[in-house]
């Protein structure tokens, strides 16, 4: 398929996933704070940090201002409205590629976000509002699976979804690093446990986690982190998402003249890194450092996918030269 179109498919999925993930984070943080009284600066700042926002004024880090910033601010590229606007803009450009049903839903939600009733729902029933945002992505993936040909465009859509999700799960886990616990003694305290539960819930992992039998005596933090990083059967775990990405890349294939690509190489590197380690290795290395490695590697994979598939291949003769230089 056309490189540019593939790129729009990929980014449409990433923006949709990002909107969902932001809604999950906001909702979980909000409900967590209903139970525990955490110092104000610890309540909402970490959420901005893991979203990649570092220049936010600490004084303004109140519940309402941060939620408004992350939900409605069109100037904030990480807000839900921005993510959904960019998802729709990508979709608009490739309307001829996605199914009519997908476009209609995408457009429906575009109008829905601008409807006064939606703002009223946000003000009056925040939980339902965030649930609606989550459903947008879920619904669109359901529609995509059932109405789009499972060809290249669909694979790029899946690739975008899983790459973004792997990154978001790693970031959510890393949020723990930014919540400063007052004392070492607080580890394993009700607040600490509540945080882990919140993280699980933000990934819809609460019930699957408890259904999974695991060795006793492991502290809840380690168990949750292990589940969200390594659990192959859980659709939001880092490992599961990367495996899905790998499958999508294999289904897409390689540009003519390439046996292996930069995308292949960066993927395999991260997968091997992960598969050759156990949870304890990551903790020994420092969970934050390990997660940072995952997030950085995913950025690298993004660039490699860009270079491999979206730049548009040069004429056959040049592709041949390229292969030579890449050895």
């Amino acid at each position: 398929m056309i490189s540019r179109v593939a790129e729009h498919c990929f980014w449409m999925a990433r923006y949709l996933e990002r909107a969902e993930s932001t809604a999950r984070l906001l909702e979980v943080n909000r409900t967590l704070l209903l139970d525990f009284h955490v110092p104000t600066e610890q309540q909402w700042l970490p959420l901005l940090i893991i979203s990649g926002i570092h220049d936010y004024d600490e004084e303004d880090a109140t519940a309402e201002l941060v939620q408004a910033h992350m939900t409605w601010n069109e100037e904030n590229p990480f807000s839900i409205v921005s993510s959904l606007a960019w998802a729709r803009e990508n979709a608009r450009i490739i309307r001829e590629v996605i199914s009519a049903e997908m476009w209609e839903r995408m457009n429906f939600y575009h109008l829905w976000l601008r409807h006064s009733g939606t703002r009223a729902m946000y003000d009056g029933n925040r939980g339902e509002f965030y649930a609606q945002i989550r459903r947008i992505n879920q619904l669109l993936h359901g529609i995509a699976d059932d109405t789009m040909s499972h060809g290249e465009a669909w694979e790029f859509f899946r690739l975008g979804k899983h790459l973004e999700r792997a990154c978001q799960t790693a970031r959510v886990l890393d949020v723990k690093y930014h919540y400063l616990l007052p004392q070492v003694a607080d580890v394993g305290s009700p607040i600490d446990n509540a945080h882990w539960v919140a993280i699980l819930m933000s990934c819809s992992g609460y019930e699957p986690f408890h259904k999974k039998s695991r060795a006793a005596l492991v502290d809840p933090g380690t168990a949750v982190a292990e589940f969200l990083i390594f659990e192959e059967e859980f659709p939001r775990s880092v490992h599961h998402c990367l495996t899905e990405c790998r499958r999508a890349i294999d289904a897409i294939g390689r540009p003519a003249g390439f046996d292996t690509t930069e995308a292949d190489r960066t993927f395999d590197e991260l997968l091997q890194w992960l598969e050759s380690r156990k949870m304890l290795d990551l903790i020994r290395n420092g969970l934050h450092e390990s997660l940072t490695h995952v997030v950085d590697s995913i950025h690298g994979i993004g660039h490699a996918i860009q270079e491999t598939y979206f730049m548009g291949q040069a004429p056959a003769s040049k592709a041949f030269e390229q292969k030579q230089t890449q050895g």
Partner: protein
Amino acid sequence: MGNDPPLPCRLFQNYKPHPKAWDELFLNQQPHSHCKELLGQFGQLDPLEFQRRRTSADMAFVNQGITFSVYADRRGVEKIFPFDLIPRTVPAEEWYAVESGLKQRITALDAFLDDVYHDQRILKEGIIPGDLVLESKGFRKEMIGFRPPGGRYIHICGTDLIRDEKGQLIVLEDNGRTPSGVSYVLENRAVMKKVFPELFQYCRVRRVEDYPRQLREALCSVAPEGAANPPVVVLLSPGPYNSAYFEHSFLARHMGIELVLGPDLFVEKDCVYLKTTLGPQKVDVIYRRLDDDFLDPEAFRPDSLLGVPGLFRAYRAGNVTLANAVGTGVADDKAVYPYVEEMIRFYLSEKPILKNVPTYICAKPDDLAYTLDHLGELVVKAVNESGGYGMLMGPASTAAQRAEFHVKIRANPRNYVAQPVVTLSTCPTWTDEGLAPRHVDLRPYIVSGQSTWVLPGGLTRTALIKGSLVVNSSQGGGSKDTWVMENGRA
């Protein structure tokens, strides 16, 4: 309305046809015979129910994002093209004549293009003044001596028809470059079927849905030698910020072809390739929605970022088909238009079936003098403008506007033509004061590959402002579904 018999239905009870213009649905306060059934059905609606359906039609456009964009800021504003629910009807027998007239016209226009880029017989024999053609902005000297694959020049033509006061359909202009609007024909019909399904059970209306397939087949039929089987056809768009992007993506979707932008293509060894995720793919036919000027920075405007460097070279080498061909603009130059009837006689030895509007060509001294003396009664048009720009509506103009045109025309007579004002026919249209007559035109679409096919009906554009004779969407016009009846029954 004095002692006139009452109109046949509630919705039309207070409808007062235009005093002068031909009405598309009514004759002497009674429905034309071909739309009795339609008006009878509409008659069962009360105005409230009609309003409800109107809202539901508008919502269908909004929800599907059927919009054109007005990009003023970064995010842009998307607007819907106003759609009026009362269809414009064309009787079956009349359509047969229009169809043959359009086919005759396109055959002559294509023969003319082939002639001006080869032997120039029509110029040598003095039928059309040579300088008029050779100095036309649409004339491309680069095309001299080149015959496009399949010998076809105008693959898609949108010919604007208007109906005069006597009810005769006449040709206002031929759009043989990159005519737009056909997606609205298809979407209008889809929405009508959704909102008034019952009407289609009673009234036999000819289908329009075949257009994308017909176009695709026509384009495949003129693929260059050595093309893949089936040929690789793409639609080349200026991009998502073009106001017609919706139409480009609509057509690509319905034709099952790729929508591409200039940077998606490249030329290597005089062949055109598409940049794909799996490497280069050769392209055989390009349905381009870019003007000649922007197609290829190497051959035409060097500052064009929308085109494909080397595309014209590949075209001249016969390795790719462009639809429409390069250089068709000379055939839809408004100063060449007055000669189309002559072309029909010259190339086909036939009598023209469709008539032109009488036109004064300011390049001719007599016509120039007449035009300058009668600016207040004429419509003056710049020969290469479209979309209702560069026009003077004499009777509605101010003295200052006339003075401005007087200067402009004298400075560059070749750039102007003038026509008597034709009172366009009207069709009942929903307005703030209920149903009222509004002026309409009709743009049928003619698709030509190895053979020629005419879309039954076309785009009916309607002025929404009372008394306005300008129907262009850029000037605030709307559109209607166009019904070509089967068997004369409605």
